[in-house]
C-alpha cells in the first residue's frame, strides 16, 4: 500500500508572527520557515507504517513556492521515498489544494493519505476533509492512533469530550493530531541520502486545476491587546477579589 503525505512549508512554530504595518498580512521576510508540525507527525506516522511492513512506498507532495523543496527534502530525509512539488508563488486556499491533491490521488492511487489536521499559518483545518469529500473517501480527522486492520483503518480521534474510534474502509484520508507520535530527527547520512531521492516538479496547470482564490483578505490586524493588571500581595487579597467577582459567596 502506498501512502501519500501532503506537507506545507509554514512559519516555524517557534517564531512569533508579526503583522505587517500596512495590514496586508504577516511579515515572512527573513523569517525561519519549517514543515508544518502536524505534517511532520503525518510523515512520521507514514514511516512507522512502512517500518511495520504495512506500507510499501511513501510519496510526499507539497503545493507552494520553489523553497517548498526544502520542506520536501526534510521529509525525504526522515524516510519518505519520493516527492512531488506543485510549484506556485500564489497563495493557494485549502479548496484548491484539495483539488490538486485529488488529481495526485487519481494518479498515485494511495491506500491512505495522511495529512496534518491544520496548518499553523492559516489555521483553516479543512484540506483533509475537503480531499476526502472530493475523492469520495472516508475521513479520520484529528487522529491520535492509527491501526490498519485488514481492508479498513481504525482511527482514534481527539474529540471535544475525549476520544472516539471510527473504522474506515480503505482507501481513506487521515488527519493527524498532536499526540499521534513524536516525529524523529533526520540523521546526517539520511539528509545526504535525501538529496538524491526523486523530486518531481509540477505546476497547478499540469493538473488542470483552477487555483484562483475565493476569499479576498481585506486586512490583517493585530488582535486587541490585554493590559497587564495588578499584582496582589497575598492570598487573602485574592480571596477578596474572587468575592468581588461573585464566583464565591
Amino acid at each position, binding site marked *: 500500500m502506498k501512502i501519500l503525505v501532503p506537507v506545507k512549508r509554514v*512559519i516555524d512554530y517557534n517564531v*512569533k*508572527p508579526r*503583522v505587517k504595518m500596512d495590514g496586508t498580512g*504577516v511579515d515572512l521576510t527573513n523569517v525561519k520557515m519549517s514543515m508544518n508540525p502536524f505534517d511532520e507527525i503525518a510523515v512520521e506516522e507514514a514511516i512507522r507504517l512502512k517500518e511495520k511492513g504495512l506500507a510499501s512506498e511513501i510519496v510526499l507532495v507539497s503545493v507552494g513556492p520553489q523553497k517548498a523543496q526544502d520542506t520536501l527534502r526534510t521529509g525525504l530525509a526522515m524516510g519518505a521515498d519520493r516527492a512531488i512539488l506543485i510549484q506556485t508563488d500564489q497563495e493557494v486556499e485549502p*479548496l484548491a489544494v484539495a483539488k490538486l491533491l485529488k488529481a495526485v490521488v487519481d494518479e498515485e492511487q494511495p491506500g491512505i493519505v495522511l495529512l496534518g489536521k491544520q496548518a*499553523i*499559518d492559516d*489555521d483553516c*483545518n*479543512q*484540506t*483533509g*476533509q*475537503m480531499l*476526502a*469529500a472530493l475523492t469520495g473517501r472516508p*475521513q*479520520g*480527522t*484529528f487522529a*491520535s492512533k492509527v491501526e490498519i486492520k485488514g481492508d479498513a483503518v481504525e482511527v482514534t*480521534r*481527539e*474529540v*471535544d*469530550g*475525549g*476520544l*472516539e*474510534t*471510527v*473504522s*474506515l*474502509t480503505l482507501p481513506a484520508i487521515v488527519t493527524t493530531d*498532536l499526540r499521534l507520535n513524536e516525529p524523529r530527527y533526520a540523521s546526517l547520512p539520511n539528509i545526504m541520502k535525501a538529496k538524491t531521492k526523486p523530486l518531481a516538479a509540477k505546476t497547478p496547470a499540469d493538473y488542470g486545476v483552477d487555483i484562483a*482564490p*475565493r*476569499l*479576498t*483578505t*481585506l*486586512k*490583517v*490586524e*493585530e*488582535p486587541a491587546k*490585554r493590559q*497587564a493588571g*495588578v*499584582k*496582589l500581595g497575598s*492570598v487573602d487579597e*485574592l*480571596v477578596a*477579589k*474572587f468575592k468581588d*467577582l461573585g*464566583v*464565591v459567596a
Partner: protein
Amino acid sequence: MSVLVLIEHEGGAIKDASLTTVTAAQKLGEVHALVAGSGAEAKQSADAAAQIAGVAKVLLADDAAYQNMLAENVAPLVVDLAGGYDAILFNATSIGKNVAPRVAALLDVMQVSDVLSIESADTFTRPIYAGNAIATVKSSDAKKVLTVRGTAFPKAAASGGSASVEAVSGAGDAGLSRFVGAETSKSERPELTSAKVVVSGGRALGSSEEFHRLIDPLADKLGAAVGASRAAVDAGYAPNDYQVGQTGKIVAPEVYVAIGISGAIQHLAGMKDSGTIVAINKDEDAPIFQVADLGLVGDLFQIVPELTQKL
C-alpha cells in the same frame, strides 16, 4: 436570506456551542436548525431546538446513520438541503470542524473557519497564526460555509421560540465508515468550553498526582471546569481534552485561573478572551502576567492549598 445551522445535541439537549452559532446565524438571515440523529433522542433534541429563540424552523433527519455524526453520512444530508440556503453554519467544535469542510468541498465552496465576527453577508473576521493576527476576509462564493467560534458570540436563549419541526431524509449510511466507540471523560464539573470559571494547571505542578491534588479541590470550590496547558498535557499530568490553547480548546470564561502556567503564545491563544484572568506563578517575569488582570507571585504549592482552604 436564509441560513441553515447544523445543531449539535446530546441526550436530547442542545449543546451550548450551537446556541452561539444560532446567534451568529441570525446576523445573516432567517435561521433553520438541522437536527440529525436517531430515534427518540433526536426527536427530543428537535423539540428543544424548536424552543431556541430566533430559530424559525427545525429540520429533523432521523436515521441510525446520523447517530454518531459521521461526516461521511451527515455531509451528503446537509448538501442535499443546501439548495434552499445562502449560508450554512457549523460550530467550530470537533464535530463542526470535521463535517463542515466535507460539505464545503462538495458544494465547491471555500469555507471560512473559526468566524469571530460577521461584518456583512460576505465579510467575516477570523484568527490566523494562532490568534496572533485577525484577518478580515470577503467570500466570493454564492453560498457561504462557516464554522463559528463559540466564545465570539453570546448564546441564544434556549427557550422562547416556537418553531415548527419538519422531517427530512437523506441518503443515510454512505457505507464508508463505522462508529466503533468513544471514551468520554466523565466529570461532575461544567464543560470546559462553556464554564463560567476555568482553573488551569501547567507544567509547574510537576506530576499528575500534584495536578489533581491541587487543581481539583480549587476547581470544586469555584464551581469551575479544569483545564491544562499543552506542556502539562504533553508531560502526562492531564488528559488531552483538558488542553487549552491553539491546538486544544478555545475558552473565554468569566474568570480564568492559570496556575503554574508560564503563558506560551500557544496557550494565550486559547484563553486571552476570558473576562478576568488570574495568574499564580513563581516567576514574576512569566508572560502570563502580561495578560493577567490579577497576579500572585509565589510558590503555587503553598498558595493553592491556602487559597482553596480560605475560599
